[in-house]
């Protein structure tokens, strides 16, 4: 049981560097755990480590719980990426969370892709 913050499956994140078509550099933030108000470091902290000329993939394959406070942090990441002209694509969301992310408008600023290949294609 976590102390302090109580019992929560804190989000963790790992950053991978890939290359898209034509060798375009891409950074993938691979999340696991819960995406909630507790995920500021995993989301915004990870984003800060990414070079500003990389496109950004957000990998939710190992995430099974996302709430609206977590989505707000994803929107903050997208806002920062938008300022730096970085493309963003998301993948690995369940159909339910694809629907939820689309409902709040995220699909208008980032590709909500079916899988990693489609996400890479979208930012390449």
């Amino acid at each position, binding site marked *: 049981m976590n102390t302090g*913050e109580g019992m929560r499956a804190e989000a963790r994140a790992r950053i991978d560097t890939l290359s898209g078509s034509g060798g375009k550099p891409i950074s993938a933030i691979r999340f696991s755990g819960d995406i909630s108000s*507790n995920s500021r470091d995993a989301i915004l902290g990870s984003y800060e480590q990414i070079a500003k000329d990389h496109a950004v993939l957000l990998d939710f394959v190992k995430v099974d719980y996302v709430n*609206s*406070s977590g989505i707000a942090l994803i929107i903050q990441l997208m806002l920062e990426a938008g300022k730096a002209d970085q493309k963003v694509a998301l993948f690995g969301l369940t159909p*339910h969370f694809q629907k939820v992310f689309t409902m709040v408008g995220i699909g208008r600023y980032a590709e909500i892709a079916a899988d990693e290949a489609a996400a890479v294609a979208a930012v390449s």
Partner: protein
Amino acid sequence: MIDGKNTLVEVRIPSRLGFEKVAMGTAESVARLMGFPAARIEDLKTAVAEACINAMEHGNKLNDKLSVGVVLSATDDELEVKVMDNGPGFQAAPHQPDIDRKMRGEEEARGMGMFLIQALVDEAEWVKGSRGSDSYVRLVIRMEREGE
């Protein structure tokens, strides 16, 4: 149901972020027992989570000593959920998030919980408690989504 009676299930959780997942688990089990389709169970879980988080954060101000009560009332084909807190409640219509304004930094990134609740369930109603406490949000979710 037997004699057309309502079936009541209640769960009470502390006002600590993360415990909304317990209420989600309880709601999921009730909906499964009722025979809800998987996609509707996901809608229900997200709506219950957002309502519990609001009750903890805004209603109970994350005061660990106050609990959030969730009453699930099942009839043949619908489930009513009341999520109750000790705060004064809220009675505006849910704000529709404006992603364009959020992306320009003109609207705060948060503020999507009530919108999601209303969008995912069939009925949603925010009820202010009398005497400035005991407010609740009341949701109704039907087995099959209307118009689908």
